[in-house]
């Protein structure tokens, strides 16, 4: 039989919430996640929390315990005083879904924007040869369990929603570093990308990310600083800079620095010459009961929908074309 301890757990959802007080039994050897589970089983069956492995391997159970970003399954109760109140709150940097569960989609989005491993040309599967010393540097970063505690703690986005657009965060700096140090990755512009696309420049090396990493990855020392240093080298050393500039120019067609094409938002509103009104919005199709058939994607083909509608057959009969050739500029400005 264990002792009763005082817990304060944040409960609520995207519309708001508050800390609730609980007296709960704690036994020898237990971790914070065990106590949350006991609350579920005995007092609050609908208390929301993420977890999987209970062994610090999956990175699901990230939360803030007494204000510190931690894994719930790796925080032993014996690290607190018997009388101490333990306060458990959701990660602050990400929007709350419910109770201790937050929406971490930001991270999956940033992962997509980072160009994937580029396999070396002409090396068949089974023919990859690498030395242990050479893979070890990247292996350190591949230990990452994607708990996103480092993302949560980084001040660049913690209280600055507006930076999220331009800043990928430490988790993805180590991914960039990992690929940069991969002995066989075919791209050679990882550092430039980190600067240009990931917002490496926002990081001012506070090392908070390294401090919270449960895998003890030396995020700042082994990834961010080397990436920054070399970016600095290349950007400001006039000779290297010139060399790279020239190199880039004649390679530009085959090797654009930007990996993923940018979302097309900018292109869409640039100079439309259509001289006519856009299509009238169509009424939503309703089912036999007069109600909406709720469907997000009812396309019958692979790939993205055609911007002209999937039932359109090309070429269109000319009389149905809605295009007029632009007339030459009339000179009355824009």
């Amino acid at each position, binding site marked *: 039989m264990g002792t009763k301890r005082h817990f304060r757990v944040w409960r609520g959802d995207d519309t708001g919430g508050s800390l609730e007080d609980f007296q709960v039994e704690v036994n020898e*050897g237990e971790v914070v996640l065990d106590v949350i589970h006991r609350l*579920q089983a005995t007092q609050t069956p609908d208390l929301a929390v993420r977890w999987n*492995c209970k062994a610090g391997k999956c990175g699901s159970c990230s939360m803030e315990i007494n204000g510190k970003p931690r894994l719930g399954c*790796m925080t032993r109760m014996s690290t607190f005083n018997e009388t101490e109140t333990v306060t458990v709150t959701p990660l602050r940097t990400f929007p709350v879904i419910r109770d201790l569960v937050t929406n*971490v989609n930001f991270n999956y989005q940033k992962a997509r924007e980072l160009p994937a491993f580029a396999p070396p040309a002409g090396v068949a599967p*089974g023919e990859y040869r690498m030395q242990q010393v050479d893979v070890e540097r990247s292996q350190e970063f591949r230990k990452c*369990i994607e708990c996103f505690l480092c993302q949560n703690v980084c001040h660049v986005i913690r209280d600055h929603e507006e930076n999220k657009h331009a800043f990928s965060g430490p988790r993805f700096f180590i991914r960039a570093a990992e690929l940069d140090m991969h002995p066989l990755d075919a791209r050679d512009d990882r550092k430039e990308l980190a600067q240009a696309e990931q917002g490496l420049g926002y990081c001012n090396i506070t090392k908070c990310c390294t401090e919270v990493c449960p895998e003890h990855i030396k995020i700042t020392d082994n990834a961010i600083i080397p990436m920054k240093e070399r970016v600095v080298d290349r950007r400001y050393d006039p000779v290297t800079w010139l060399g790279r500039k020239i190199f880039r120019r004649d390679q530009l067609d085959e090797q654009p620095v930007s990996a993923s094409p940018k979302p097309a938002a900018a292109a869409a509103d640039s100079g439309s010459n259509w001289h006519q009104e856009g299509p009238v919005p169509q009424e939503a199709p309703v089912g036999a009961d007069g109600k909406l058939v709720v469907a997000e994607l009812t396309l019958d083909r692979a790939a*993205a929908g055609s911007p002209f509608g999937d039932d359109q057959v090309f070429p269109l009969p000319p009389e149905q074309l809605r295009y007029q050739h632009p007339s030459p500029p009339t000179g009355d400005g824009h």
Partner: protein
Amino acid sequence: MTNIERHTYDVVVIGAGGAGLRAAIEARLAGKKTAIISKSLFGKAHTVMAEGGAAAAMGNVNSKDNWQVHFRDTMRGGKFLNNFRMAELHAKEAPSRIWELETYGALFDRTKDGKISQRNFGGHEYPRLAHVGDRTGLELIRTLQQKIVSLQQEDFAEHGDYEARIRVFQECTITELFVEDGAVSGAFGYYRESGDFVLFESAAIVLATGGVGKSYKVTSNSWEYTGDGHALALRTGATLINMEFLQFHPTGMVWPPSVKGILVTESVRGDGGVLRNTEGKRFMFDYVPDVFRKQYAETEEEADRWYSDPDNNRRPPELLPRDEVARAINSEVKAGRGTKAGGVLLDIASRLPAEQIRKRLPSMYHQFKELADVDITAAPMEVGPTCHYVMGGIEVDADTTAAAVAGLFAAGEVSGGMHGSNRLGGNSLSDLLVFGKRAGEHAAAHAEKIGRRKPSAAAVEAAVDTALAPLARADAGENPYTLHHELQEIMGVLVGIIRRDGELRESITRLAELKERVKKVGVSGGRKYNPGWHLALDLRNMLVVSECTAKAALERTESRGGHTREDFPKMDPKWRKVNLVCSLDGEDVRLEHQPLPVMRPELQGLFEQTELAKYMTDEEL
């Protein structure tokens, strides 16, 4: 009428572990619009927890290794109950599947000449497990996850939409599959996050949902392992085989109580760790069964020499297949030579320098330090058996992974047959890749042939009602946590590692009672991220799968691999020819005997006649 989000896909893959992701990659590469569905976040599936490695006869460390040897080890490990064709395909194709991972960016540990390093593991004749320290599962899942992202980037470049051809639906649980006119037509489930319902219309569904361990209290498995895929398949009319075979991993943590069951990887023993009882005796030498006598060392000296000179010495008995080691530990503890917490001692501290231990077993070092406050470089670990893996699963065609219902495919832990009565360590990760790929390929071909299908509105409405029922009963119903606890109690005590006739009969009666109570389960709260509701819906799956295990365990009156009967302690060659097949008859599980496929003569020729004689009946020889 409830709002239902509707999607149409060529191929729907349920499960985002190794098998599911590999299947999805293959379906997408075949040009099919593919959905991946997972109960947890992307990249957190159970595969992430695998530690030791992935078995593939690449022959990088010992060039004598080849697929024939791997095949032989797999059949021996499974006590010849394996589907021989699956074991054959697995042994042949595993190396290519591993090499392929390197082209996706995986970084395995290396040999001196720069190839993928391979390590020793129980039951494998040569060092065979490709590995990354002791976090191989993480490497595998991250690599596949990143490959999917790279395919999405290709689609973005081509179509302006990352999700044009492959989309991940994370934290989404499937509760029902639809079958019309004998073929699959779709899947239904809910988003954990919002509680909203979602319907996938599709003619090809791949089940890759993993195992069933959450029906046991002491288990290395996570909450995801509630046997959903097994149960979904049963309800569509497909069949399960070998459900009596559960692997109890010999070395789970036993102290402190809250981490009881968490795995201590077999690599500890592969790298030199030895098992001792509290009297300090290295007891495994007393437990080498006859069928393995020839391959295992008889003295400590010979066993110790094996680590440096495997060609001239036999391997230490600590590396016997898992079922043997688990039973041995169980006997030692029963005989009073175990620790207070009910385990034995696993010692690596006295066998390797501290530096080496930290290097080769970093996450074990970390795990014991953080969770048990034990420094494994200085003190032994306390370990005992834990429920780990289900050998049984959906009965599939070996080449195509197709289940008995048209359009349904299965790969990974949820499928059955590959591992026979006992799985060798490391054979799962390679199984995921080999059969995941095959599942994706054949599901895509099936979709190509059939086109798209739609479930009927009535069927969807029934699925909605079933899903909402526990919420309607609210507090008036049975508490799901209590029911789950009772189920674990029944399975752990009555259908555990050592089984007896009377107890198995009792378990079947008690499961039947529990089934009635599960029908009345109720939960308070709303639909939004409500774990009580999620558990309530998982319960019926756990229950039907447990019923399969209990009934099959009662029927099989012999001991073999992951099924040990105290009242029938011997292996019986007559039972080797039989698979027990479970199907659903209304609400109850029906059990049938089915003959095993007969191994082709050239494969039989890989074994010595005297060895086959230990397993087979006289007329078979």
